[in-house]
């Protein structure tokens, strides 16, 4: 479970988050929706401890990580896999090496165990036959699946997705959303899905947080969005393509 308690974050004069509080439960898919620059991606960076808040507390399974040192954060980060918007795959490594990289870096495992875990992830990402390919030679959907496979390599309980379907064709988008859905139903994993696409929210999310000007203006199940009287939510539901 991830909990934000009155979190504030400011860059210079720009207040990115202003007293944000919410709870992300385990084994549920929570979408964070909002226009560009509303602080959506910042939220998942805060969850991983990649940036520190100016004020407030961030609790991961009851542990306050807001001011934790980098070296103490690894056990927390192992609980959460991260899928970056641009995938952040290492372009000089093959698909297989990308999956094995962090196992070799951070866990003292036998090569046979690493090979087994990598094989499992290649199978999960449906990348059989592409093990030796560099990320640049893979399609957008394949890269995203490889990034999801890498996010699962430590066996996390929660996966954080930063705009997972941006730039993908409709077929790849559907496949990625199916993968996110299956992670919850088949493996019991929770997910945080940062997006600006209402379609993603309606397809997979169990609950939705809407961020506007650094504040949470809606936090409930997607079905209740229609009942929300906040002007931004109302306008967004009328013109979802014009979120910015």
């Amino acid at each position, binding site marked *: 479970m991830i909990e934000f308690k009155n979190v504030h974050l400011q860059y210079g004069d720009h207040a990115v988050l202003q007293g944000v509080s919410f709870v992300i439960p385990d084994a549920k898919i929570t979408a964070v929706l909002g226009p560009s620059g509303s602080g959506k991606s910042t939220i998942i*960076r805060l969850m991983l401890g*990649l940036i520190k808040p100016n004020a407030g507390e961030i609790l991961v399974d009851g542990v306050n990580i807001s001011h934790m040192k980098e070296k103490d954060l690894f056990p927390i980060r192992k609980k959460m896999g991260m899928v970056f918007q641009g995938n952040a795959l290492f372009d000089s490594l093959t698909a297989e090496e990308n999956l094995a990289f962090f196992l070799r870096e*951070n866990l003292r495992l036998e090569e046979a165990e690493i090979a087994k875990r990598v094989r499992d992830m290649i199978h999960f990402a449906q990348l059989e036959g592409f093990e030796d390919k560099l990320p640049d030679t893979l399609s957008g959907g394949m890269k995203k699946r490889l990034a999801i496979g890498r996010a699962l390599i430590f066996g996390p309980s929660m996966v954080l997705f930063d705009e997972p379907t941006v730039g993908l064709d409709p077929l790849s988008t559907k496949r990625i959303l199916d993968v996110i859905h299956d992670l919850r139903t088949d493996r019991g994993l929770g997910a945080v899905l940062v997006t600006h696409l209402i379609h993603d929210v309606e397809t997979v999310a169990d609950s939705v947080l809407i961020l506007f000007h650094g504040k949470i203006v809606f936090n409930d199940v997607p079905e209740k969005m229609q009942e929300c009287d906040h002007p931004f939510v109302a306008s967004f539901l009328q013109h979802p393509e014009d979120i910015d």
Partner: protein
Amino acid sequence: MALVTVRPLIHQRLMPFFRLQARLATRLNDRAKGFVCMMQEFFYFAMRSFRSIVMLPRYWSDTLTQMSQSGTESIPIVLVSSIAIGCLITLEVGNQLAQLGGKSLTPRATALSVIREMGPIVTGLMLSARVGARYGSELGAMKISEQIDALRAFGTDPIAKLVMPRLVAALSMFLPLTALSIFIGLVGGAVVASSYHHIDSSVYWNAVLNPLVVKDWLVAFLKPPFFAIIITLVCCYNGFNARGGTVGVGAATIKGIVVSSCFVLIANFYISKLVLENL
């Protein structure tokens, strides 16, 4: 009554000036704050880079790769630049000394220039351009594509993984490259001395090597480790702080090269001054 009306008028006329002054002061204040913050961040970055040298055994293969890329692959550019410098110094100095009737002093003048100053500084500047550009652009591209964040997110210290091997590689390779540069510069000088100034090779090498003292070598070989530290840390720091897409990578790379080259020149002057004045 007149004073009462004139004063507000002066104030009114001077108001744009006061506003401009206030805006300038605010901007200067922001710049100064930004600079202090940047220096603080840079020293923290440098400290973490040195502290992570204890993790060298873990990143040994990365370090060897960097040694090959920043050391072995830099040999051609170091050879070309140092032979050119050696030839030119001998040519010019020989011509000037010939006019004063002191042509026999050419080898000694060449040796001192090449060993104490030109060898280290040409190598430093060439490596700042070649190695610094590589470090800055590689790390800048990794930063822009979120690979550095990915390292952190999956529990790897990016400074230990990316900066420390580059720092160790530069520290171990810049010294032999400088030695090579000095040797090739002197060989270039020998060729010009013999073919253009008609100074016999044995006379040249005797005049170059015999009068050399420890101080000369000390000046030459104290510089490369400082240059290695300056170039690696400045260029890697700029790469780590690249932002704004491909343009940002270019800007960070250029900034790294310019700043490290300036610091190389400054460090060169102070090391020479310090050693020559105190030994």
